């Protein structure tokens, strides 16, 4: 494994010049092989740890939102496979590539799959060989969620067709060393949750299931299953070729590598940018052309993240640990710049109403609690919130957080409670004077009209 990147260079940070997104157009198979060559073989045995060791050394973490160490996830599947005998039989484990991003303000997985499909497919094959998988699935939304982020990039058409063509094109070159199946899943916020993908592959609906068992222990076809975000897998494809030391040339010590970040809202050039982790949030905003209007706050991490007032951005680094310390999150790489002309309470009320509508209705506290929460947020933004109303939000927060099979209720409750804390002065103003004129500003946070799965 060499220390140099493709073309013998280290990656650059300009838009469209990154490791994962090397150009503006689609990197087809010929161009991909020119750039990177075929994916290397590990030392051949199922469960061989050399790639997993490299992933550990690289410090790669999941790019789907949770930021869990990828090496540990790979090992968990290997161990479960060994315990269940799957590693020593023809049966094998399963790899699921999650490209079905449901976070409405995120578009980076779609961009990655459109522009660099073969990096993701290589990563699937390499991860499959590392965990002894005999089947792999690439999950994408059947149709893109409408009303996502405006701005450049590919049109929001279904990815399934082009990806199937990409898989077939590799067949002739023998690159699909493990079979790859493209699976299209119905839209909906919770449908891309990892147990939902596993449930769909198993013939059920794309809705979350109860844990345990975790997919790593018992997932698709009742076998140990590795579910990884597509950007994580693309990074595995690069680490397998260029090594952990090369990977760490980007990023900082606590968050190595690059990240794809969807920047939207009041910026001049919204879109997906590949940046070094640990770079400044303000530099990313400049990369996106700078503010298009006087900004007041940033939503970092999407609906699982939190608001940061502009003054909190001074010197703030873009990485999961750094943003968590600041009270937000990197999530799946989402930055939304909220203009001063918009009302943060109205924005959040819309977002919470959207999240409430995305409940699969499986868990009582989520099904019954989120509409109450949405109603409270509506009245806070558009009415005259009294103390009782603020107290209600705290009560519902306590009643729904952690009580669903998935994290949807935690997300909605966290966003609502976090907003009331960050914009306390705004809440007070609404309480004293009623709704501000800014509630009529066009909605900045996306709330696509998705039908739950």
């Amino acid at each position, binding site marked *: 494994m060499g220390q140099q990147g493709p073309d013998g260079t280290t990656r650059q940070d300009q838009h469209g010049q990154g490791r994962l997104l090397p150009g503006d157009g689609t990197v087809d198979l010929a161009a991909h092989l020119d750039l990177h060559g075929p994916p290397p073989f590990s030392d051949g045995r199922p469960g061989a740890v050399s790639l997993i060791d490299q992933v550990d050394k690289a410090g790669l973490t999941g790019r*789907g*939102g*949770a930021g869990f160490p990828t090496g540990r996830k790979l090992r968990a599947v290997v161990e479960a496979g060994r315990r269940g005998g799957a590693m020593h039989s023809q049966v094998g484990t399963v790899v699921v590539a*999650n490209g079905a991003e*449901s*976070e409405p303000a995120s578009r980076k997985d779609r961009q990655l799959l459109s522009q660099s499909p073969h990096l993701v497919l290589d990563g699937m094959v390499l991860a499959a060989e590392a965990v002894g998988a005999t089947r792999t699935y690439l999950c994408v939304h059947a149709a893109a969620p409408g009303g996502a982020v405006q701005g450049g990039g590919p049109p929001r058409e279904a990815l399934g067709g082009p990806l199937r063509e990409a898989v077939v094109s590799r067949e002739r070159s023998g690159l699909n060393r493990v079979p790859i199946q493209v699976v299209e899943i119905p839209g909906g916020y*919770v449908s*891309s*949750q*990892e*147990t939902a993908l596993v449930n769909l592959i198993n013939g059920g609906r794309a809705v*979350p*299931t*109860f*844990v*345990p068992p*975790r*997919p790593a222990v018992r997932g698709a076809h009742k076998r140990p299953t590795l*579910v990884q975000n597509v950007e994580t897998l693309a990074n595995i494809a690069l680490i397998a070729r260029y090594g952990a030391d090369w990977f760490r040339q980007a990023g900082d010590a606590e968050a190595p590598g690059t990240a794809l970040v969807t920047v939207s809202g009041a910026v001049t050039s919204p879109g997906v940018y590949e940046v070094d982790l640990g770079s400044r949030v303000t530099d990313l905003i400049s990369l996106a052309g700078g503010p298009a209007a006087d900004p007041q706050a940033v939503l970092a991490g999407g609906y*699982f993240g939190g608001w940061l007032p502009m003054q909190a951005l001074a010197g703030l680094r873009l990485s999961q640990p750094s943003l968590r310390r600041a009270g937000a999150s990197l999530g*799946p790489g989402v930055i939304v710049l909220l203009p001063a002309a918009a009302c943060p309470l109205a924005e959040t009320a819309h977002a919470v109403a959207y999240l409430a509508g995305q409940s699969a209705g*499986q*868990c*009582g*506290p*989520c099904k*019954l*609690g989120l509409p109450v929460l949405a109603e409270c947020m509506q009245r806070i933004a558009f009415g005259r919130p009294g103390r009782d109303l603020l107290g209600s939000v705290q009560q519902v927060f306590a*009643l729904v957080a952690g*009580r*669903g*099979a*998935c*994290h949807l209720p935690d997300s909605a409750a966290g966003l609502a409670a976090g907003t009331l804390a960050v914009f306390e002065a705004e809440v007070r103003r609404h309480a004293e004077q009623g709704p501000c004129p800014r509630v009529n500003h066009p909605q900045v946070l996306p709330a696509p009209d998705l039908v739950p799965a």
Partner: protein
Amino acid sequence: MTGRNVQQTLRVNPIACDSHGLCMELLPELVAADPWGYPIIRPGPVPAELLPLARRAVTACPTLALLLIRADDQADPPQT
């Protein structure tokens, strides 16, 4: 699987739970009702003296939504 020294905790499978409420009748020491009638479990391991009652509540649940699981098997629900 349920070794003598392994602590056990109660968990509700929120998908299976239909708020029949038997668990709160049978085990009020550890289970309370939320405003909608769904069970709220007191966190932490089940005290040894309550284990027989906890087992009875688990058996009585009509939707098999109440579970006694090893305290070290408490996987967090995964994110997307």
